[in-house]
């Protein structure tokens, strides 16, 4: 375990050194990322000028929520980039090399890529979060700080899990996987609003089928004080369990790969 951690750190270091070979491209991508959601944010601001309160949420609540989702998404994009671009790894035959090394496959794929430029979007999300925290009167206590931390952890895990599922599908087909963008990019884009905005049935779907609501709506209403049940703070951690089937699916894909040699 300790060795694995050291190896992972080594992978990251080498990836960052590689990225620094192309400094101008790095900065351009980072700034692009930093500005990526500005127009979305303006759209939200204009909408709330017309409709100050929607389903119990104000503009500041939505900015806070949007910031957290952006952070969850960008963190997963940053560290799970290897799964994100897994189609390329398969197409180039690089997965053979993974199998030739005496290390856990998943650790190796995580290590193969680290996209530091996603820090642009992360900063943008953090700014929105900070703005929300300053503007909304929240009675902060230890549990609420912990809730915020759990949300970011659980949300990053959720997006990472979705990336792993898409990567697992790459073992079977490389065509049409764009539909998975609905669950990743779609969740980032539409997750800017608290999920109950989209209706009760949708909220239910996001609670049981793909547990977005566990890292967004429920802990959010706890932080905002709309509900006070303490266990809402820990719902995001349930998402960590959801990683188990994702990894199982990936392992199943590996077995298929080893028997089909595609």
């Amino acid at each position, binding site marked *: 375990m300790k060795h694995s951690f050291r*190896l992972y750190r080594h992978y990251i270091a080498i990836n960052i050194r590689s990225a620094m070979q192309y400094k101008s491209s790095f900065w351009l991508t980072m700034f692009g990322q930093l500005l990526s959601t500005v127009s979305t944010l303006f759209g939200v601001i204009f909408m709330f000028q017309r409709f100050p309160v929607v389903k119990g949420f104000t503009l500041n609540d939505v900015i806070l929520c949007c910031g957290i989702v952006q952070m969850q998404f960008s963190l997963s994009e940053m560290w799970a980039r290897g799964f994100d671009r897994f189609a390329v790894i398969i197409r180039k035959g690089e997965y053979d090399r993974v199998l*030739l090394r*005496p290390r856990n496959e998943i650790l190796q794929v995580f290590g193969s890529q680290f996209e530091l430029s996603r820090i642009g979007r992360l900063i943008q999300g953090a700014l929105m979060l900070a703005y929300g925290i300053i503007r909304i009167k929240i009675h902060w206590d230890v549990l609420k700080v912990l809730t915020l931390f759990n949300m970011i952890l659980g949300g990053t895990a959720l997006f990472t899990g979705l990336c792993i599922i898409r990567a697992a599908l790459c073992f079977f087909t490389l065509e049409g996987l764009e539909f998975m963008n609905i669950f990743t990019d779609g969740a980032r884009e539409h997750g800017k609003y608290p999920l109950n905005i989209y209706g009760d049935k949708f909220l239910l779907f996001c609670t049981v089928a793909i547990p977005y609501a566990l890292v967004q709506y429920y802990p959010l209403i706890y932080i905002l004080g709309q509900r006070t049940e303490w266990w809402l703070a820990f719902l995001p951690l349930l998402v960590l369990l959801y990683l188990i089937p994702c990894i199982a699916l990936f392992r199943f894909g590996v077995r298929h790969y080893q028997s089909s040699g595609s």
Partner: protein
Amino acid sequence: MIHMENVVKTYRVARRNAGAKAAFKALFRREYQEIRALDSISLDISEGEIVALLGPNGAGKSTTIKILSGILYPDSGIVECNGFVPYKERMRYTREIGVVFGQRTQLFWDVPVADSFELLKDIYDISEQTFQENQQELTELLNLQELLRTPVRQLSLGQRMRCEIAGSLLHSPKILFLDEPTIGLDAVSKLAVRQFINRLNEEKHTTVILTTHDMQDVEALSKRVIMIGKGRLLLDGTIDDIRKEGESLDESLVEFYQGIEGLGKEEKS
């Protein structure tokens, strides 16, 4: 050291006919065609041998290497390498082998070669002492002194191949697989690679299995030649079994391959 017995491997390949109608159909149902890549292959290789796998493209050479290195499962048959079943005991087995793919790199493209080596040290859990000794030795033998500080993308193909080989030997593997190690290299690099492999084999008794299309590789390196065609073992002998009087090796090989084509025809009739 290496034992293969009646190993069979078939691939399923999606078949698609031309035309819009067929393409539309393929959206919903695919037709598959079975391709037999290895058709009951049996062979034994002892420790310290250098063996060349020959055969036309698509003959099953790469499949053989992939099965022996644990990347692929066979459909049936027995595979045992150095006491392991490669595809079952991947984590422990891969510590004992080194693999070089001539057409792909295992080094990080944008950082100096030495950085990639350091990473390999962590991947294979090589002790500091062993790592230093091996790196020093390989640097001398393969003449890497100038190259270690250079990013991989700035190396020529021959320089890169020397680094690739060094990288796959840092953990002192017992078996070395080389898939087309001299493809695209200039004459000087080819010679250097061949000399090194021979020396490695003599001094460390590393078992070497290579695939190649270059008959000079075979002449320079291996006493033993295994020829595969259409998934079957066609010849297990020496280069002299292919050579004919008054012809170049390449010409003799072409005749041999044409013989395989004939074999295919007989089957059909």
